[in-house]
């Protein structure tokens, strides 16, 4: 029996030099960064349009952001819905799913650290929500008028 105990002490705990879980998490975070860049490209289209309309309202007398947006929505209703609703909603849902998965796979870290590490994702969600909000405000104003 003492021999068996010594043998167990010698064996110690089984050790894995590389954790599969760590590798997967690393891959997921890198993939997440690639997706963030993709999201930025698609959100940039909506923001470029808003920026152009803001400039137009500043330099063309009698023009406002609301007029420009209503004019664009009237001329290209499907494109307006695509750039200001479909794409931002898709990006928001995709970001939320990725954040949930990373949070779970990272072993539920502290909220503060997690938000700091995933700041780009939270900013992307914020930007997407801003575009949706802008469109909904102007759509509501149009329907009231």
């Amino acid at each position, binding site marked *: 029996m003492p021999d068996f105990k010594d043998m167990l002490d010698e064996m110690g705990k089984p050790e894995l030099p590389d954790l599969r879980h760590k590798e997967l998490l690393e891959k997921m975070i890198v993939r997440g*960064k*690639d997706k963030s*860049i*993709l999201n930025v*490209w698609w959100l940039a*289209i909506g923001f470029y349009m808003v920026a*152009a309309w803001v400039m137009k309202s500043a330099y063309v007398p009698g023009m406002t952001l609301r007029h420009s947006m209503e004019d664009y929505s009237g001329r290209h209703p499907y494109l307006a819905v695509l750039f200001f609703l479909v794409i931002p909603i898709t990006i928001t849902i995709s970001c939320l799913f990725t954040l949930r998965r990373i949070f779970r796979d990272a072993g539920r870290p502290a909220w503060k650290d997690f938000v700091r590490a995933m700041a780009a994702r939270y900013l992307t969600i914020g930007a997407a929500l801003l575009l949706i909000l802008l469109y909904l405000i102007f759509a509501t104003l149009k329907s009231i008028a």
Partner: protein
Amino acid sequence: MNFPWFRRTGPFFIPVSIIGWLVLFAGIGIAVRLFQDIDKRSHSVSDTLINFVFNLLIIGAAYSLIAFLTSRKPG
């Protein structure tokens, strides 16, 4: 198909295979063609640039979507 066609460097996807380069050159070709078309119809330089940058963003977004989908490493 042999992936990846692209690898990400900062905000851009750089081609790493012949097909990747073909996609990039196709994007540049479409951008040049669009620029000529917009320039023919516009009334001023700012008119050309405002409309061209909008189209360039759409081309960039489509290119990055293709690059994102084809930059996955096997395994």
